[in-house]
């Protein structure tokens, strides 16, 4: 059947070239190779965590035209739950690698689960009443963020909580040369890559994925084919929130602390990422997140004062090149 079929589109690799360009440019500016390699690996790890956080947001927008300005709430929740779980587990100081992995796994899993459940409530109470009304969506989801942040303060207190890494995950991986990659960052990178692979698999190889991609283009027709798009949306929203929770747990361990404001802080960053990537595109989100992660690390080393600017400059540059983002999603 497929032998005499015309193959699909050639893959648009230009955005990936952008990533390579950033890395290369940094390479020229950073004199020593080990430093550059360390920064690059760090940047990729950070980018992958950001991807996990932002992936849910972009998918939800692509599917239902809903932009959740309160997405950061799930990130914060994931972080705080992880902190509580790890705290509960008592002495994380003396755990071996295996036990550490288990501990982190439990913490992240709990963060994911709670975030997903809260996501369901969020969708039901805040998002559903304002489908299709963009202005109200922005306002109400921001309201949700305010409420969420306050509730976190209520439960965990207003201050920062330290979140030390379990012993088995501290320190760096042995790498050739003077290149440094923290064990935890490697783990985070692995988790990020797994999420990416899983998302791509679901979106491209399963019927559910076909359904989601079709819904992104033409909701009405999907209903005419007999599918309840509302249910699909609820599922995707919950999944997106869960992913944000997972990302939040990872992010907190990366920073080794949680604060009630972390949701709002990370919000700006993920918006930049999904604008760069193209609202609704998972691949775009991936590339955008990596770009932002790399840039943050390079700039942090080369010119710390200009770090946040570099992200915005990147966003503006990308929008001038492709006004809809790196991988625009058609159909709207």
């Amino acid at each position, binding site marked *: *059947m*497929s032998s005499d079929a015309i193959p*699909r589109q050639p893959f648009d690799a230009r955005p990936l070239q952008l990533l390579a360009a950033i890395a290369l440019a940094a390479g020229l500016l950073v004199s020593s190779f080990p430093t550059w390699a360390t920064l690059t690996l760090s940047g990729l790890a950070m980018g992958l965590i950001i991807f996990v956080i932002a992936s849910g947001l972009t998918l939800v927008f692509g599917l239902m035209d809903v932009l959740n300005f309160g997405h950061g709430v799930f990130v914060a929740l994931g972080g705080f739950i992880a902190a509580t779980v790890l705290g509960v587990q008592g002495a994380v100081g003396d755990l071996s690698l295996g036990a550490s992995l288990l501990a982190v796994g439990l913490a992240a899993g709990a963060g994911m689960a709670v975030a997903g459940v809260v996501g369901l409530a969020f969708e039901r109470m805040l998002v559903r009443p304002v489908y299709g009304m963009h202005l109200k969506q922005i306002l109400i989801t921001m309201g949700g963020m305010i409420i969420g942040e306050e509730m976190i303060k209520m439960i965990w207190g207003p201050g920062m909580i330290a979140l030390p890494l379990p012993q088995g995950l501290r320190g760096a991986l042995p790498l050739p040369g003077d290149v440094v990659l923290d064990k935890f960052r490697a783990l985070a990178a692995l988790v990020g890559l797994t999420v990416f692979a899983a998302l791509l698999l679901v979106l491209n190889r399963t019927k559910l994925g076909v359904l989601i*991609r079709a819904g992104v283009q033409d909701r009405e*027709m999907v209903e005419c*084919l*007999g599918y309840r798009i509302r249910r699909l949306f609820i599922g995707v929203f919950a999944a997106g929130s869960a992913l944000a929770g997972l990302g939040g747990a990872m992010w907190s361990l990366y920073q080794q602390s949680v604060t009630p404001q972390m949701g709002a802080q990370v919000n700006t960053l993920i918006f930049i990422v999904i604008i760069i990537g193209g609202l609704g595109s998972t691949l775009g989100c991936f590339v955008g997140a990596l770009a932002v992660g790399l840039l943050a690390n390079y700039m942090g080393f080369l010119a710390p004062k200009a770090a946040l600017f570099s992200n915005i400059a990147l966003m503006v540059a990308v929008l001038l090149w492709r006004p809809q983002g790196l991988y625009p999603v058609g159909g709207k």
Partner: protein
Amino acid sequence: MSSLLSLQGVHTHIGAYHILHGVDLEVPAAQLTMLLGRNGAGKTTTLRTIMGLWRASAGRIVFDGREIQAEDTPTLAQAGIAYVPENMGIFGELSVRENLLLAARQARSIEQLDTARLDWLFVLFPALKKFWLYPAGRLSGGQKQMLAIARAMIEPRRLLLIDEPSKGLAPAMVLSLIEALRELKNDRTTVLLVEQNFGVARALGDHVAVMDDGRVVHAGAMTELAQDEALQQRLLGLSLGVHQ
């Protein structure tokens, strides 16, 4: 000859506009009913109202003995009604294969598609086989139309609602279209077809309803209309084609 679908006094409002002013329509089972009329007569609105995309503000719609005017679109689709809109509703970023997979509700994956049925479709619409993995948005207008019809045929359906399929199609394509619809008729599928092309109408229609100003102003056998030039003139404003 009983009606599979029956509209009784259906009114539809879109915002402030009153489009359907009491539509009465009978669609006999296992037959092809043509819905004719000028532009703006309300034909598309009627189809969309049946499909639940627009809610009827008054009246009843009965499908297979069940009142459906208050049901939502997915329920109607699951009850066996397939809708092929005027803009075809093709998912451009998905491949032809994925478009058909989505339409085949019983199939959980590509492998589960009914190969016998697919082969039948490939005979009718060779382009589908040729462009199987191609993004559907890259197909020509005619090929997209074929895909849209194929989607409605990938599984047996009770009722097909098709909106102006021959619009913009090259004559050769129109012949393929007629062929496909004839196969559907042979399969004893009930079809409600909106068409401007009287040639297609005459070739396929068993039953005809003519709309004007949001109402059905004439209903009867196709043969009757095809032979009565004066009636054609009165209803459609022009005399169409050669008589039977």
